[in-house]
């Protein structure tokens, strides 16, 4: 038969391919080990708070590597913490309400204002090693990444269907098996998507915190963020382009090597009864699945390990429910924990009050002025974002051909952290002679408009075609079409995008309103500028006040504006199939 030679040729191709693949995998493993060595040598080395930043492109790979490792470590910490936090919040009935409320508030606190406290604490912890400064940056990234992941896992755990839970209970699953076979798989998709959002946020903060001034101390960590800031400070256009190129390259690479495979892999955790037609695919994942080395690693190491874990945790606790009544010592420990937490909070409040006592009236009034100014800027940037993204997003969403071209482009634009572009934009602004008052709106827009655009596109695509056909059949006027079909259709998506954008804009204000540039400081009136300048000056009481005011503003706006709109979107404007 003629298919025979073709078949054997395919087998040969497959074989050679997998040998190559194995080589690549092997090389990747070696590279990881080498990277680990480099990193540990650097971290455990003596502290050099102000690294010399080399502006030549040859230094970029190492800088990119350092930045990526910071992001990766921060992300792994976030993942572990998010799993633990979500798990406890979902299963501890007494703590649940408190923990969810804490999540809600921590999500809205401007992370960057923690920078001085965290840095000083970490440097004090490891006074002689580079690890101290690095840990500070990593913890900052962690605090920017962790909350939405924790919330996603918590929400997944709470929404596991009752009968699946009952099946796990009646068949005697222990805690470990339940975690591995039910809870983690059920939460996987949410975790992957939220991880992507989180890591994008991580880049945003990393770019800002690799280079900053704290009172009299100057910190500069070798990385892409400090490279870009240094290049912009020196007005070195070539270096700026090299830096941006490296940054985009790294982000695209991570997207292809980490997120695409993760999305394709997590598709099997989709909780659906019928197979969907369109499944995400990833070439990298397909290749990895074919690597002999990895297959052998799985059968020889992973499977036996999983089996040993399963058998070890089985039987214990699986068949025996914990005794029904609360154990005395548990209750005592609970109370002790609650009391000590309460005491710590009271002490912190007292300390905060003592710190705030030294505030002067001009500081208070300037805080209020700043709050009003930043509030205005956030509002304006949101309005501008909505004004251009709604028509653009609807046009893209309604036109599949346009969407195919525009979506990857928009994704690329969105993946570049706004903070990396700030120095560049600032350079342009100054050349054009614009002030930072208006310029900072532009900077905020840069970071936030994409959320709105993506959501509007998704919303426009989700409008059922028969609704649009109704508009065609009855010859709706343009205005009528927008009012009765398009705007209500995209409303829930628009609100989702605006909420995210609003949070992002507040956070961006800290870096957008105040800038060190070529040895001088550019700033404008605003809450964000006040936070940054208080950080610079080491004025902790003003920093605390501004942070509290900003957090309070964000929480209030969320409660008073976004949450009712959200509810409206979830009830009246939900397109039910």
């Amino acid at each position, binding site marked *: 038969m003629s298919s025979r030679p073709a078949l054997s040729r395919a087998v040969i191709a497959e074989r050679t391919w997998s040998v190559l693949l194995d080589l690549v995998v092997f090389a990747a493993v070696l590279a990881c080990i080498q990277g680990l060595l480099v990193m540990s040598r650097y971290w455990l080395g003596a502290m050099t708070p102000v690294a010399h930043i080399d502006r030549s492109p040859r230094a970029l790979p190492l800088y990119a590597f350092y930045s990526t490792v910071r992001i990766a470590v921060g992300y792994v910490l976030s993942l572990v913490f998010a799993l633990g936090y979500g798990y406890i919040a979902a299963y501890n009935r007494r703590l649940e309400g408190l923990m969810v409320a804490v999540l809600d508030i921590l999500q809205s606190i401007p992370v960057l204002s923690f920078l001085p406290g965290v840095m000083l604490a970490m440097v004090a912890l490891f006074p002689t090693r580079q690890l101290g400064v690095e840990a500070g940056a990593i913890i900052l990234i962690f605090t920017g990444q962790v909350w939405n992941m924790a919330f996603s896992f918590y929400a997944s755990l709470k929404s596991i*269907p009752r*009968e*699946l839970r*009952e*099946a796990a*209970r*009646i*068949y*005697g*699953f*222990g805690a470990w*098996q339940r975690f591995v*076979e*039910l809870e983690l*798989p059920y939460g996987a998709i949410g975790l992957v998507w939220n991880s992507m959002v989180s890591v994008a946020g991580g880049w945003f903060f990393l770019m800002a915190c690799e280079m900053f001034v704290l009172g009299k101390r100057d910190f500069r960590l070798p990385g892409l963020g400090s490279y870009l800031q240094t290049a912009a400070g020196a007005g070195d256009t070539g270096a700026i382009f090299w830096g941006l190129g490296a940054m985009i390259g790294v982000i695209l690479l991570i997207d292809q090597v980490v997120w695409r495979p993760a999305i394709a892999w997590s598709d*099997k*955790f*989709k*909780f*659906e*009864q*019928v*197979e969907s037609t369109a499944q995400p695919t990833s070439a990298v994942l397909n290749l990895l699945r074919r690597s002999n080395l990895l297959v052998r690693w799985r059968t020889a190491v992973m499977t036996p390990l999983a*089996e040993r874990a*399963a*058998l070890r945790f*089985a*039987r214990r606790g*699986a*068949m*025996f*429910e914990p005794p*029904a009544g609360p154990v005395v010592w548990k209750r005592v420990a609970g109370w002790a924990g609650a009391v000590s937490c309460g005491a710590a909070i009271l002490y912190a409040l007292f300390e905060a009050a003592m710190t705030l006592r030294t505030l002067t009236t001009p500081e208070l009034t300037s805080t209020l002025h700043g709050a009003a100014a930043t509030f205005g800027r956030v509002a304006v940037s949101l309005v501008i974002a909505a004004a251009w993204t709604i028509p653009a997003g609807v046009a893209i969403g309604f036109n599949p051909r346009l969407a195919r071209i525009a979506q990857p482009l928009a994704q690329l634009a969105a993946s570049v952290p706004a903070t990396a572009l700030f120095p560049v934009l600032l350079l342009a602004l100054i050349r054009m002679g614009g002030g930072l008052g208006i310029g900072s709106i532009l900077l905020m827009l840069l970071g936030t408009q994409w959320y709105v655009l993506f959501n509007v596109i998704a919303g426009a695509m989700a409008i059922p075609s028969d609704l649009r056909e109704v508009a065609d059949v009855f010859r709706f006027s343009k205005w009528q079409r927008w009012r009765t079909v398009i705007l209500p259709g995209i409303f829930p998506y628009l609100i989702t995008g605006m909420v995210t954008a609003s949070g992002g804009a507040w956070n961006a204000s800290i870096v957008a309103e105040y800038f060190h540039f070529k040895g001088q400081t550019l700033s404008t009136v605003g809450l964000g500028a006040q936070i940054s300048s208080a950080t610079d000056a080491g004025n902790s009481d003003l920093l605390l006040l501004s942070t509290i005011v900003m957090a309070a503003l964000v929480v209030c706006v969320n409660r008073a504006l976004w949450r009712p709109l959200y509810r*409206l979107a979830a*009830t*009246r404007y939900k397109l039910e199939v």
Partner: protein
Amino acid sequence: MQPIIEARKVEKSYGSEGDGFIQVIAPTDLAVYPDEILALLGPSGSGKSTLLRMLAGLAKPSAGEVIHHGHEVGGPCENVAIVFQSFALFPWLTVLENVAAPLKAHGVPAAQRTERSLRILDTVGLDGFENAYPKELSGGMKQRVGFARALVVEPEVLFMDEPFSALDVLTAENLRGELLELWQSHKMPTRAVFLVTHNIEEAVLLADRIVVLGKNPARIRTDFRVSLPRPRERKDSRFTQLVDYIYRVLTRPDLAPAAGPEVLPERTRPRYQMLPHAPRGAVAGLLEMLLDRGRDDMYRLAGALSFEIDDLLPVVDAAVLLGFAKVEEGDVEITPAGREFADADILRRKELFRAAALENITLIHQIHRSLEAKEGHSLPDTFFEDLLDEHFSEDEAKAQLETAIHWGRYAELFDHDAGARRFFIPEEAPAALAGPSTSEATH
């Protein structure tokens, strides 16, 4: 004979004693004996599934106890299995992994797990599918996986919670036959089967013993043995007689339990009238059908409408509540008022419906009267939710209001704004009807 699992005076209630106390299941005794298939029948929402979960140790009774081989049950029973209505398979595990999961939980080593699972898959006719994922299978095959997972642990009692109701008619019939064959040929090591269902014929086809539950709160109406020889034929006159008998028990809540094991205590307080969740259009359809037939057997009616009894009962209840029909001995008969309604044109029907609803439906009457009395003719949902909370569970209270809104809108008595969560009387609504005096409809 010693029962395997026995419920003693178990009850389920929500809320605290006093206000807001709702009893879902009245104190009930129920025992599962070896070598029998026990079918638990009851209208939907009667608490059958809750009773199953209490027996299996998944739910804690509010009072009373469940005894398993002489020991009180404190958590999930050992050595039992459940087949779920929704299959409850883990979509990220293959068929084989799904079936092997309970064995893994019991610490069975991998090789043995695979061997035992494959053997069970073979028994239920799924050999060759062990590496498929559940989403690649049809509903019937998914439920076969559910059976395999249940049987692989060699359970002493096999609990089944409406296992066939998510399947199409033919698949369900096929699976029932296979289950019966496994049971009769002792190919499964199970000593007793506990089947929850709302399908009367299914119960008569499979069970050795049938227990019928009443509703609000659930209590055993009747408990009897089925002595029909197997294989049972649906066309057999003894079969249809038995089905008819159960229909009568189910459709006449006021009927004293015929063969029930106990006479139950009287209710402690008058119960609030419960709106059946029937679409108004279905009531009209039923009446039109009865217009020709006058009086008909409910069993035949369900057949003619190709309804499950579960779907027909609320419609009949609604018609009876409105005074358009009455039920006697399992037969439905149209009343003169119902005849007038069915004969009328669209507008006249609306008027008749309005009058009947105001006169006979407590909730609609109350909503209407409260709105009339209120300045601005508008009240928030919470006002009525509070009112209903005393009599119904939270979900049921919501469902009651939804039905009331549906009927009230049709009758043009009041309207509802879902966004503001308020009831109101629209400006142009007709004033309250002259006709039924409002005071006598309050009870």
